[in-house]
């Protein structure tokens, strides 16, 4: 009996290569050899929190409806990394943070992250977890209407939406735009990216959101790991072009190889 699952040999090799590339990129990052481009959407987070402080209005950080056990878990983790950063900034600068929750398994983790940020800044007494991180609902439109209602009442100056989003993305983006909030949207859900692009001030497209945690950390080691994504993307691009050229010439070796 074969130990490896049939048709997953190439994905396994790709996974191991990604692991090696990430390790190499981290080592290069440690040595300060890696420079990455600025991501305006992530640079603007501080601006949003500062704006909220000046206007005396709250900041919303919405991490979507994802859970830890579905295929969108990585987006949820990216959203939580940003929540950690946003809550730290809010605690430090004195902006009131609201992060309404939709997933019961993510709720305690989010609450712990925000509490930890306020604790580290010595401002735990300024945080009311139940009020600022309310569990609204696990169903899509009940959650969406809850957030729309909160936004209309609290009129936040900024809104950061990073995580997995579905049809509610348009409702959020439009509602916060109407009340004059500065917005950052980021999701890897393909159909929602155009909605964010239409109404948000800054958009994180595709893999940018996965780099967010490392980017805002400022840690050279973590920033190095972002380079692995770019190396891998270049390899995919080269493979795609080569495959297209060979397929045009009637050679299907790349396609056959990827199906192994």
């Amino acid at each position, binding site marked *: 009996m074969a130990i490896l699952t049939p048709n997953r040999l190439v994905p396994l090799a790709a996974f191991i290569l990604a692991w090696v590339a990430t390790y190499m990129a981290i080592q290069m990052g440690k040595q300060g050899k890696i420079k990455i481009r600025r991501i305006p959407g992530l640079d603007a987070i501080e601006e949003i929190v500062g704006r909220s402080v000046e206007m005396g209005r709250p900041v919303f950080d919405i991490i979507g409806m994802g859970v830890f056990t579905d295929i969108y878990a990585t987006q949820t983790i990216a959203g939580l990394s940003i929540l950690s950063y946003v809550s730290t900034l809010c605690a430090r600068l004195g902006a009131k943070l609201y992060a309404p929750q939709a997933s019961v398994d993510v709720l305690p983790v989010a609450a712990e992250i925000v509490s930890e940020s306020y604790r580290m800044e010595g401002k735990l007494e300024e945080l009311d977890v139940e009020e600022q991180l309310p569990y609204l609902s696990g169903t899509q439109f009940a959650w969406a209407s809850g957030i729309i209602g909160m936004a209309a009442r609290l009129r936040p100056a900024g809104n950061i939406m990073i995580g997995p989003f579905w049809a509610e993305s348009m409702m959020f983006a439009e509602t916060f735009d*109407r009340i004059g909030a500065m917005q950052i949207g980021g999701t890897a859900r393909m159909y929602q990216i155009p909605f964010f692009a239409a109404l948000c001030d800054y958009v994180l497209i595709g893999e940018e959101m996965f780099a967010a945690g490392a980017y805002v950390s400022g840690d050279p080691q973590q920033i190095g790991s972002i380079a692995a*994504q770019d190396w891998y993307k270049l390899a995919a691009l080269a493979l795609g072009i080569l495959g297209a050229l060979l397929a045009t010439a009637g050679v299907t070796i790349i396609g056959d190889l990827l199906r192994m």
Partner: protein
Amino acid sequence: MDYRRDIPLAITFLVGIIAVLDYYTTLEAVTNTFTVIKNWGVVLQAFALGLGAVNLFRVHGKRVSERTREDWMFSGWLLLMLVLFVVVGLGTGQYDASTSYQWIYNSLYLPLGATMYSSLAFYMAYGSYKVLRARNFEAALLFITAVLVIIGNTPIFPATFPVFFNIREWIFGPIVSGAYRGIRIGVGIGAVVLGIKTLVGLETGYLGRR
């Protein structure tokens, strides 16, 4: 040793490695172990659901008891509905299959959900209006493309002039599919790298600032 940081990282690594092995190998011991872990996950989620209900009761119960906010009656309504659904679901012994439960679900929840969903049309109209103002060259290109797609999607135009259907197909094919695939590849790679970083304990944002 910072146990609040190291223990979650060790659990993440162990469970992550088992999940990866389960996907790539056919080892029975790994499959059985991962099945047990997945069952634990289901149990934990059930407990977390209880936590969500407790959170709702605490937050909204406080609002109802204080009555200082203008919207306290909505909190009361929410708690009433929460209790009603649980009582009807458990009381009949048939849970969500009971006629009474289905009646309140179909009469109360479903129309509200449908209303919210249908309101998307207005949100989209607002979004379209905002984005389709030809203020610069790129926006003008987007506007022209959108108009061509709308014409191609409206039956009367392709029926009269088939070229509109071909234009729409061309936009959706080489242009949109090409761009989407580029983004999809980036998303896939980003997710894999983030997964690896989480496994090896480099990505700790989900643990807070530790």
